[in-house]
């Protein structure tokens, strides 16, 4: 797999502060604890409870679990976008708690996030083109590798989309623009937080396929967050099952889904709709 | 508490419902502003009474005053008079009031009494006052000093006294509803000849002139004071009795001769010639003010020997093409139509070729600036005499160390002093004429404009109210 990474990665590693060991992890989370304090009541809520995980270069990893189990909190902490909590997070080997603010800003583009609500992820006052232009001014070297039109082609969007504003895009189109924006940054890690749950099933399949393809061609690692086991299974190699802030079970998808060890995983599998249909396949 | 205002009165015992322009501040005559005098003067009496022409007469608490030498005055106190609380209103009480007036920090009349060096009451009916320098009009000053009971005043203090004043007058305190009204009732054992023939008076107040008109129109009050010309006209049209009295309050434009542009006598003359006081009286006041060309003619009706009359053409000629800049300071909202008057003055100056800017400020600040000599150009404000003596204006406005000090001149200082040293008013009169001519006609430092006319309306059938030019009101003979 490391081979694929090297080939697929445009531009090599020169842009990194230090050249990375190819077998090194893109993201390492060590014994992470994140707590939210409710502003109104002052109550403290532990959303992520002693979680550790590791994503190697080019890997695709999923986190599943029910609503409120801490998946988003984990992802935001891991990319340095949300509250960082206690415990060590290393993005490309840099510990997020020890890097300075400036360095963090440099490091962040390495991890790009695709969110659930595609419209909410785009500035409503910016056309697609000016949004891309802004990214280019923010990261001139990183983004010079591709033209706007080519970029849109890679996410299978028509160049005419460039002049549109977010509210003039359908959900699927908007989500593809979000993916294009992430792609432009040539990230080493793409975090997709329920990227398809706001979309219709027919569109969902396209988006998933696109994410897969990008991972294959650029070699970026993928951290997929979802509550839909079928989606996870069709996209990811490794899965972590979260429950009440803890990772209760991890392993390769095949193993976990075929022989679930934990009660909760079993419950999840049993609750998956479509048993009747699958039984007829 | 007082009686309910707003309820119509019919025959029988009659309480006068009087409407003032503002809530009287404190009713303590020593520190209180003179505007509240209308209320406290029903209960308290001045040491010396005045006649219709504002001259002291012997019908009041003091029955005689003699000048034993140039700086010593001896007064006789009317015997056997008591305050309504039983205290004796004797010479000691008079001496106490004079001392309070001179020594209290916040005394309103303090500055008039700086000349007093000694006050003594050798017996129950005699008071002897010594002044530093000779002062022929000292007795006049006592027409505005109101007698307070020494023990009661000392006991209660200023605030306590103001909450329930005690005096020798025809009425006694009846109570108040805070912020709403104040009442006095008749004093059955009043010593004087003019006992009240009504039951008492309830004072209320309304800041807005339109209100004061509306309230008299709706018969909510029996007398409504202080109606500006517009309201007075309306009231008359509506068939309401309006009484107009020419007052001693004078509106004057003061030109600062010590600073540009009016350090130039030519420009002062131009300004004096440009302003048309008759047009102001007619146009702005609808005739309800009295054009007045003199400065030291204190009593209503009195005219100066010499004066300046309008000549816009000459004014323009004097100014020439230089277009000097002039600031006009005036106390916003302090006197009736003062904004319009100031603008009329400004308009006239502009026509003559001046460039005018207006500085409306509140009264307190204006006084402070005037006193601090920070008013280049023109200051317009009123001279409000407490007593009808020319020295009030001479010392107040003409001497180098006066309030305005806008016309410093050794000759003026000398003449003012000389006038005071005369034996009586008649002897002083020619000197004041001379002063007036210097200030107004020769040097053009003062442009007197007009005297205010005070209007009040009385309800149907209400009569017997007497209003004096110095803001004194006699309610005792008021009936319905």
């Amino acid at each position: 797999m490391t081979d694929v990474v090297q080939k697929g990665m445009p531009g090599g590693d020169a842009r990194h502060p230090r050249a990375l060991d190819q077998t090194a992890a893109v993201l390492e989370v060590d014994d992470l604890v994140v707590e939210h304090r409710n502003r109104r009541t002052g109550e403290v809520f532990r959303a992520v409870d002693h979680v550790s995980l590791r994503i190697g270069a080019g890997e695709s990893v999923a986190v599943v679990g029910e609503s409120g189990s801490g998946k988003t909190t984990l992802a935001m902490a891991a990319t340095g976008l949300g509250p960082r909590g206690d415990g060590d997070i290393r993005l490309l080997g840099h510990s997020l708690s020890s890097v300075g603010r400036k360095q963090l800003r440099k490091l962040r583009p390495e991890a790009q996030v695709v969110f659930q609500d595609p419209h909410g992820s785009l500035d409503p006052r910016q056309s697609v083109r000016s949004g891309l232009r802004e990214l280019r001014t923010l990261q001139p070297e990183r983004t010079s590798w591709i033209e706007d039109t080519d970029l849109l082609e890679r996410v299978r969007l028509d160049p005419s989309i460039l002049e549109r504003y977010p509210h003039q895009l359908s959900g699927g189109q908007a989500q593809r623009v979000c993916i294009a924006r992430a792609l432009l940054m040539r990230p080493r890690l793409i975090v997709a937080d329920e990227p398809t749950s706001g979309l219709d099933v027919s569109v969902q399949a396209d988006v998933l396929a696109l994410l897969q393809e990008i991972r294959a061609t650029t070699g970026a690692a993928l951290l997929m967050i979802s509550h839909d086991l079928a989606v996870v299974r069709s996209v990811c190699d490794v899965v972590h099952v979260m429950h009440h802030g803890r990772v209760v079970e991890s392993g390769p998808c095949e193993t976990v889904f075929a022989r679930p060890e934990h009660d909760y995983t079993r419950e999840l599998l049993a609750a998956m709709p479509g048993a009747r249909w699958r039984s007829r396949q | 508490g007082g009686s309910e205002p707003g309820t119509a009165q019919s025959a029988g015992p009659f309480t006068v419902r009087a409407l003032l322009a503002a809530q009287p501040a404190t009713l303590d005559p020593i520190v209180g502003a003179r505007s509240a005098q209308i209320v406290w003067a029903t209960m308290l009496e001045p040491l010396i009474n005045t006649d219709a022409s504002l001259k002291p007469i012997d019908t009041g608490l003091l029955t005689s005053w003699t000048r034993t030498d140039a700086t010593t005055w001896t007064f006789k106190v009317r015997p056997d008079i008591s305050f309504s609380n039983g205290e004796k209103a004797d010479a000691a009480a008079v001496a106490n009031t004079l001392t309070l007036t001179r020594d209290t920090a916040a005394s309103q009349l303090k500055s008039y009494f700086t000349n007093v060096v000694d006050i003594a009451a050798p017996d129950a009916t005699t008071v002897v006052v010594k002044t530093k320098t000779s002062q022929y009009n000292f007795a006049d000053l006592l027409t505005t000093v109101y007698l307070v009971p020494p023990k009661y005043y000392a006991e209660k203090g200023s605030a306590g006294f103001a909450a329930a004043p005690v005096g020798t007058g025809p009425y006694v305190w009846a109570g108040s509803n805070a912020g709403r009204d104040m009442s006095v009732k008749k004093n059955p054992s009043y010593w004087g000849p003019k006992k009240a023939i009504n039951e008492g008076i309830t004072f209320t107040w309304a800041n807005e002139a339109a209100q004061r008109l509306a309230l008299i129109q709706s018969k909510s009050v029996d007398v409504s004071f202080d109606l500006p010309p517009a309201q007075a006209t309306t009231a008359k049209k509506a068939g309401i009795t309006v009484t107009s009295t020419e007052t001693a309050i004078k509106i004057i434009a003061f030109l600062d001769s010590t600073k540009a542009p009016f350090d130039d006598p030519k420009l002062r003359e131009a300004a004096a010639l440009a302003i048309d006081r008759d047009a102001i009286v007619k146009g702005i006041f609808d005739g309800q003010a009295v054009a007045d060309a003199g400065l030291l003619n204190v009593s209503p009706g009195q005219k100066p020997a010499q004066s300046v009359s309008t000549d816009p053409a000459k004014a323009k000629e004097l100014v020439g093409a230089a277009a000097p800049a002039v600031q006009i300071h005036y106390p916003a909202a302090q006197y009736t139509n003062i904004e319009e008057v100031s603008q009329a003055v400004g308009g006239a100056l502009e026509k003559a070729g001046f460039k005018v800017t207006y500085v409306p400020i509140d009264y307190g600040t204006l006084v402070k600036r005037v006193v601090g000599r920070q008013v280049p150009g023109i200051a317009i404000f009123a001279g409000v005499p407490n007593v009808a003596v020319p020295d009030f204006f001479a010392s107040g406005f003409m001497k180098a160390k006066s309030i305005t000090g806008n016309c410093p001149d050794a000759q003026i200082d000398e003449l003012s002093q000389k006038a005071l040293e005369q034996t009586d008013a008649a002897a002083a009169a020619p000197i004041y004429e001379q002063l007036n001519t210097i200030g107004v006609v020769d040097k053009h430092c003062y442009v007197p404009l007009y005297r205010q006319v005070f209007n009040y309306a009385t309800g149907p059938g209400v009569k017997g109210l007497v209003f004096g030019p110095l803001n004194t009101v006699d309610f005792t003979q008021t009936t319905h």
Partner: protein
Amino acid sequence: MTTSPVPVSEKSPPAKSAPPARGNRSGALRRAAARFAALLASLLIALSMAFMLGRLSGDPTTTILGPMATAEQREALRHELGLDRPLLVQYFDYLKGVFTGDLGNSLQFYQPNTSMIMDRLPFTLQLVAAGMALAILVGVPLGVLAARREGTWWDRAASTVALLGQSVPVFWFGMMLVVLFAVNLGWLPAGQSGTPAHLVLPALTMSVYPMAQIARLTRASMSEALAEPYIDAAKARGITGRRVVWRHAFKNAMMPILTIVVLQTGILLSGAVAVEYVYSWPGLGQLALQAIQFRDFPLVQAIVVFGALVFVLLNLLVDVIHSIVDPRVR
């Protein structure tokens, strides 16, 4: 901020059967304490501003002593009033006074400010209560009507009437009322206080602005509440008409309305200047105006302090009411 008149819909946090929380059980208490501390801080700042405003209102000595006074006399008075001391000393004296309930003495009335404020308070209270009652009685139905018929001509008419109330200069409206009802028609007294008839015009004038605010807020809040899914759900359960509007929607829409009512009351208590001026109403507003015209800075200061205190107390009241009405806040 709970006092925001802009309704901010807050989604209730999902309830957890057994959250892995190092929970803070006394959340409500903590929140109350934090809120109280914030209000106290605001109050302290407001008090400091009041102090500065007091100093701002200018040198009182000329107004008190008149133009004839000499510089020495003025200086003596300044000394007597304590104005010649260092500002910081004055400030701490003032704070001490405020916290011991002593708001100083008026320069013009020679009386304790507190007692004067208390004397005037009943009148202003009367006016505010009558005006507020009127505002609520007209504003709430008007707003509900507009919300129920959102987008129709009814709505537009009701909303425009309400907005008109927010657009008319209050004192001008008062003047016109006087001209019409007192001078020309002679139906009602033109001003002053005493009988209930005296209250009619001032209360009417007073009610215009809060009425407009209440109507507009009611409309906004009600239209939001009426769009909530639980309203449709209630309808689907067969619950009809008035009950849905008042019991379900209005109760939910009430909080912002209540907030604005309480806070407006606070503002009117100290800010009824124009109305009281027009009608010679012997309330706090008149007193304030007089104080300012006379440079009676201790009185100005005292009224401002009083207003700030009332406002803060009413803020707390809003919080308390909120926690009573809305179980989610408890």
